[in-house]
């Protein structure tokens, strides 16, 4: 019989992973993994997990891998193995639609700028703010949408997040994307347990196949990532 793997996803991270109207996991990463599974002949179940518990869950074998817009970082690489990068993500700044501020204004304004706590952009801002001579109040939110919510309430002047969710949000909320502000890009990869070398190899193979196929472009288009 075909082997079944469990993919842990952060269903709060559209368009890469989310739960659709019917309640089924969906998104760029979900469809990608489904395609790979079909091609390589294994079964996959997508399990929405709490982001905070997702790596412990992986290592406790409650799930088998994580394909859910996870940035490849040194710290994470210590506890899990990453596949080859499959997506490059930029950090962008968003502001309300009617805002006249430029990124420069904002970064020196001394006003509040929202960012999701625990993300690489939050960490990067913290370590580089002073170096860059920026002056603003880094306000930490539980999620990017909440920072946008508060920005529209007027408590902060801008929010910083990944470009993909920013695009998604700009389609639904009165905000606009100002663009990058100087932070280096990051790569997404699938995470697997250190011991599961075979699975890692299989996923790497799958990613390569996918990127070479027309399905890739189709997905990019479908999720408005380009």
């Amino acid at each position, binding site marked *: 019989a075909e082997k079944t793997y469990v993919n842990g996803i952060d269903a709060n991270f559209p368009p890469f992973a989310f739960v659709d109207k019917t309640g089924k996991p969906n998104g760029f990463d979900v469809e990608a993994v489904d395609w790979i599974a079909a091609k390589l002949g294994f079964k996959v179940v997508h399990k929405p997990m709490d982001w905070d518990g997702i790596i412990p869950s992986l290592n406790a074998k409650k799930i088998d891998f994580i394909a859910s817009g996870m940035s490849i970082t040194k710290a994470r690489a210590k506890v899990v193995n990453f596949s080859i990068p499959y997506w490059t993500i930029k950090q962008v700044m968003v502001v309300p639609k009617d805002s006249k501020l430029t990124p420069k204004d904002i970064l020196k304004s001394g006003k509040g700028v929202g960012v999701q706590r*625990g993300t690489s952009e939050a960490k990067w801002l913290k370590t580089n703010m002073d170096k860059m001579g920026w002056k603003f109040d880094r306000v930490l939110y539980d999620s990017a949408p909440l920072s946008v919510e508060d920005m529209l309430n007027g408590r902060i002047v801008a929010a910083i997040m990944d470009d993909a969710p920013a695009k998604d949000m700009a389609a639904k909320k009165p905000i606009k994307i100002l663009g990058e502000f100087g932070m280096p890009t990051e790569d997404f990869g699938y995470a697997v347990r250190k011991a599961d070398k075979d699975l890692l190899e299989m996923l790497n193979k799958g990613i390569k196949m996918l990127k070479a196929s027309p399905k890739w472009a189709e997905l990019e288009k479908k999720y408005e990532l380009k």
Partner: protein
Amino acid sequence: METWAFIIDEVVPYLNQGLWVSIQLIIPSALGGILLGVVVGALRVYGNPFLKVPANIYANLFRGTPLLVQLFIIYFGLAKLGLKFPPFTAAVLGFVLCSGAYHSEYIRGGLQAIKEGQLKAAKALGFTTFQSVVSIIMPQAFRRALPGCGNEVVYLIKYTSLAYIITCVELTGEGKILAAESFRYTEVFLVVGLYYLVLVTLATWGLRRLENRLRIPGFEQS
């Protein structure tokens, strides 16, 4: 060894900031909550209909909905209506309101465990209902409700962690940030857990002392 160094050099100093915020949230919220709970609890049992009905509605509403939702409405929702609380104020306000609702129920239970004779005796001496409740009934009811109210204080201590959702970064918030950045969940949350354990231990100890101080000689069981 490396783990220890990490905990002592990074986790502890980092979390201490959050701990301080937590303590600043807990103390006013706990005291305010108890005070509100005592007042509302008394109104729910002895108030006239004009006060009893709103008091009951308040208690049911705030006990009925998640604190998270309450904080959300106070912070994000009211802002839409132009009422923009700073995060800390919004958090304390939410905690006091929520905690007060729960305390009011424990107090109500305590009040209803008092025999009618006590109220009668007070009234026979010319006490007004208000005076009877304040100086005769409530002091007895409060003692009885105290173990329950202790529960609520303990819950509150842990629930202050929800303040992070409205950008008030306290102990758990700092813990989550550090864990996400370092990816050392186990160590970080072990320390976070220990900190809460210490806070709860302190609270339990304080409540126990209060209980003993308020013990009525000869009255209680064993």
